[in-house]
């Protein structure tokens, strides 16, 4: 998702560069005011960690492969301002040393992968964690946050390409969101595994990261927060109900299949729409909401599988031993 040079118009690139520098400025200010500068080594070496972790490739469908971005993971491990600095450092080095992602598009890339990724990831993570999270809840939260952050980054990338006039939004948005919904799954699984491992060896690191950012307004339950977030994601998907058939029709037109294909793009939508809901937009939103909730449930199951039982063994250990010995 690193945008190379040449795809963004000058106005868009400069505008996003300004937005990103504003965000970095705020992050630097918060870091300076809150810590005793004792964190500089941690941030630098963590940046090297994210850099190394991004080299991990995993297969996505049809021969393409995705790699970890790690903005939500960094936000969970280092807190919001620290994660933003770390992601920015990684992107600058990738751009200027490895020519990965454009130098003129750097502002836009920092915005997508750094600012949007960290803020969305951190907010999801804190919202789902609540005030005194169990290990399972932390792992589930970081998995879901990783998926949301990837999708949000793709959304912002698509809108930049569309604003620059490189591609039309109805074409580029479904393409990018579709691929990144899959890449986000890999991101979610790896983030969850990493946090589960860190919880096993150095659980205090996650406590510390939580103190260095916004204070969470602990919601009533993880389920409620998950519901709210999935509604938010679904609201983002709403425009797709308009966009997808339009983009599809356009592809058909440019391929010269206009005459025969004209009525068909709309037909499946009305067929798969939920009965009683007339509007295609609403149907897509509901479907998106359902999908996100399903994903949230999967994250929870993953977390249950990853976090070993002894995590809350203090009160459960004795009775279980008794039962086993009697049986």
């Amino acid at each position, binding site marked *: 998702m*690193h945008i*190379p*040079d*040449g795809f963004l118009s*000058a106005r868009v*690139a400069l505008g996003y560069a300004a937005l990103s520098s504003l965000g*970095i400025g705020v992050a*630097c200010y918060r*870091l300076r005011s809150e810590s005793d*500068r004792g964190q*500089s*080594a*941690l*941030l*630098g*070496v*963590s*940046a*090297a*960690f994210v*850099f*190394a*972790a991004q080299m*991990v490739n*995993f297969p996505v469908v049809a021969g*393409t492969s995705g790699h*970890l971005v790690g903005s939500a993971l960094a936000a969970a*491990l280092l807190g919001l301002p620290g994660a933003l600095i*770390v992601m920015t*450092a990684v992107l600058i*080095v990738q751009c*200027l*040393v490895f*020519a*990965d992602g*454009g*130098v*003129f598009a750097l502002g836009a890339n920092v915005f997508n992968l750094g600012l949007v990724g960290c803020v969305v990831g951190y907010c999801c993570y804190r919202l789902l964690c609540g005030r005194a999270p169990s290990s399972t809840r932390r792992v589930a939260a970081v998995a879901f946050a990783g998926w949301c952050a990837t999708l949000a980054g793709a959304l912002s990338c698509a809108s930049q*390409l569309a604003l620059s006039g*490189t*591609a*039309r939004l109805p*074409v*580029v948005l479904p*393409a990018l969101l579709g691929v990144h919904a899959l890449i986000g799954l890999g991101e979610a*699984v*790896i983030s*969850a*595994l*990493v*946090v*589960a*491992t*860190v919880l096993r060896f*150095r659980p205090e*690191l996650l406590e510390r990261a939580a103190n260095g950012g916004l204070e969470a307004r602990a919601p009533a339950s993880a389920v409620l927060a998950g519901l709210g977030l999935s509604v938010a994601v679904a609201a983002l998907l709403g425009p797709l109900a308009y966009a997808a058939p339009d*983009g599809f029709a*356009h*592809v058909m037109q*440019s391929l010269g299949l206009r005459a025969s294909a004209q009525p068909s793009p709309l037909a499946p939508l009305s067929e798969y729409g939920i009965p009683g809901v007339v509007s295609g937009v609403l149907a897509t939103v509901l479907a998106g909401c359902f999908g996100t909730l399903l994903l949230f449930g999967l994250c929870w199951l993953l977390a249950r599988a990853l976090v070993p039982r002894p995590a809350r063994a203090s009160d459960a250990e004795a009775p279980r031993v008794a039962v086993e010995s009697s049986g």
Partner: protein
Amino acid sequence: MSAVHRAPAPLKLGVGLALILGLAALPAERAWWGLWALPLLVLVAFLARLSIVGLLRRLALAVPFLLGVVSLAWFRPHGLEIALGLLIKASLSLFTLQILASTTPISDIVRTLRRMHVPEVLCDAIALLARYSTVLADEALRMRRARAGRTLRASRVHWWRVLGNSVGLLFVRTVSRAERIQVAMRSRGGA
């Protein structure tokens, strides 16, 4: 070390950025004007004694994304023209950036950033990242070798689990390394 390598970093960054900015400002229909910069770039690459094959190979790494976006641009009125223009602009910018990146050491870049009053926290992070990325890559390699020595083979589910475990362990080791570095810095009178 060629003359291009020795040239001051701010000058190189400035010229490179100006060229890329110029390319970005070209309208898509006039993108082939950018090809005038190609002889200049080839000349600089020749002066810097960079291997053209190496540059092309790294250019090829970015091709999937380039082609992906270019093919999306196709679905517009005058799509072919715009797609070709985008391809020219993007490849030329990438070529410029590659020459810039392979002739400018990271220490010069950090020094330039500091002179541009980029916040100190960010500069420190970049400097440490440049220094420790190879150290951590070596550490990851050692961990993988140790794991390969202990495990016979892995199923697909196991593969994910091992992957996540080793990345997590790498973070734990990263933090303890950072703590040691912090102590070392402080005992030498640093931050």
